[in-house]
């Protein structure tokens, strides 16, 4: 066991897969010499050399074009888009090329590649560098979408993503990079499409992702002190989605809350709410409630950013009020 930060776990997960399979390569802006602007790829250049850890010009289209071509010709690239906000400048390659290649080649060409990206707010980076865009990715058929919340999950899900023959968008949460936790030694491999119950509870199911998982868990601890026992599920993987774990939990608790950092309209929780109402309607003992950032650009002022992104307080208050009405 070792104490590992989330950012160190990213590098360890990639290194684990580069050690295992020489077809795995890393490309992106500042991923090699600088070790990543968030230091998530530190040490990889020294360990694997400049042929496998490649710095690129500041062009997201070039990064993903190179990664797509590499995947087409037999490599298994991991590409970095520094801030997930920048997917907007290379979305054509993601949506119209990468996501559709297997379909349009009648299965003849698969693209086993991972696009990792720093996602989410709470670091005062302002409206263009703080967005939670996992719901953009989730809306595109042909992509897998994961977002780990712990160092162990970072390693295991990175391994699963690299080993997947489908393109996987891997959303690291920037607000979690500095967090540390115990991580087991040796190889860690997880499974895409599996959620985890982080805290069992009887009174309500709270489904969260990324940074919102720790906030939901803190809110759950505070609610427990007031006699409310909620179950917290870390979704981890939006596509594929572990519907079974979520619906089984709703079956037990009768109430469902989602805690989402993405802006409210068509956030990922809307899809889960829809599935719950469709598949578990007769288990529901009250309305499904979504706790989200409002549908606005993110402010850069500390006080305003803290106000709009779901907080431990707003999560706890919303759940308590709903369960007592």
């Amino acid at each position, binding site marked *: 066991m070792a104490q590992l930060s989330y950012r160190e776990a990213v590098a360890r997960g990639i290194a684990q897969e580069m050690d295992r399979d020489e077809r795995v390569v890393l490309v992106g802006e500042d991923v090699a010499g600088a070790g990543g602007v968030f230091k998530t790829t530190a040490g990889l250049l020294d360990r694997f050399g400049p042929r496998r850890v490649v710095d690129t010009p500041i062009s997201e289209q070039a990064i993903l074009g190179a990664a797509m071509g590499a995947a087409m010709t037999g490599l298994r690239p991991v590409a970095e888009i520094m801030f997930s906000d920048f997917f907007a400048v290379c979305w054509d390659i993601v949506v119209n090329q990468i996501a559709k290649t297997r379909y349009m080649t009648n299965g003849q060409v698969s693209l086993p590649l991972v696009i990792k990206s720093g996602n989410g707010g709470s670091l005062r980076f302002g409206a263009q560098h703080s967005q939670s865009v996992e719901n953009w990715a989730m809306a595109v058929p042909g992509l897998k979408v994961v977002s780990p919340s712990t160092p162990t999950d970072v390693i295991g899900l990175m391994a699963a993503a690299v080993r997947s023959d489908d393109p996987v968008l891997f959303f690291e949460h920037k607000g979690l990079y500095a967090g540390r936790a115990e991580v087991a030694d040796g190889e860690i491999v997880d499974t895409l499409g599996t959620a985890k*119950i982080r805290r069992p509870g009887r009174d309500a199911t709270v489904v969260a992702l990324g940074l919102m998982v720790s906030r939901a868990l803190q809110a759950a601890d505070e609610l427990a002190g007031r006699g409310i026992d909620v179950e917290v599920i870390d979704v981890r993987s939006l596509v594929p989605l572990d519907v079974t774990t979520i619906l089984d939990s709703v079956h037990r608790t009768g109430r469902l809350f989602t805690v989402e950092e993405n802006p409210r309209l068509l956030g990922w929780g809307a899809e889960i709410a829809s599935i719950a109402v469709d598949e578990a309607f007769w288990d529901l*003992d009250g309305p499904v409630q979504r706790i989200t950032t409002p549908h606005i650009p993110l402010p850069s002022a500390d006080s305003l950013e803290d106000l709009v992104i779901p907080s431990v307080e707003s999560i706890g208050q919303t759940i308590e009020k709903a369960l007592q009405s």
Partner: protein
Amino acid sequence: MTRQQHSPRVRRLAGEHGVDLAGLRGSGPAGRVRPADVLAAAQPATRSASTAATAAVPAAAVPAAGSGRAVAAALVEAQLGTADDRPVGPLAAVALLRALRRTPLADADGRHLAVLVDGADGRRGVRMLSDAGDLNPAAVARRLADPDGLAEEPADNTAGDGPAPAVALCDSAAAGLLHEVPQLPAGLAAVVSVGAPVERPTVVRHDGQPMLAIGAVSTVGIVHDPARIAPAAAHALLSAVRAELETLRSTTNRNG
């Protein structure tokens, strides 16, 4: 005229337990009826039904012969983890489908679910829940509760959807029975039956520490036609259903 609003869960539980919501006082805010209120109102009736069943059907009863054919029966106990109020029938249905997908038996491959249903005329028949292989327990429960969603078993293979599975589920737990050993309807090779859970002291582990909890145990049985299924295959299916049921309950109770 005032109308009390009840949640879908409360309405479902009231229907399942025969509780009249109009006469029920709720313990929730502003008198709202909670699921626990329905279960509390239902408890006396359920108790007497299961006591009567325990008295009337001794465990390991001699199986009744089906359609004049020789049948064989076997029973096992399934440990369901800590007790809760979930119906065991839908869980057993998913467990049976999973077991059959892994090891198909006599045309039953786990894609479609066959269930024994008692009709309004009191006659028992076999009904089909088609394409049930990817449903979770909640979805199975919902579809079983909708009589229009169940197809009559095709008399022969002319329905076009392929043969009806030869292995069916009998949810004796829904009737509050400890265990029913059902007759084997004509055309079926086996019926898997699940009984109402009984509560027992159980050792569970919480963060690695052993603790006493109230556990639930259901009896799972199989009645089969030895001319169509070898006893060893029937017993293997029974063990597989038990294992799937225990896994389903433990993974849905707590998932790391």
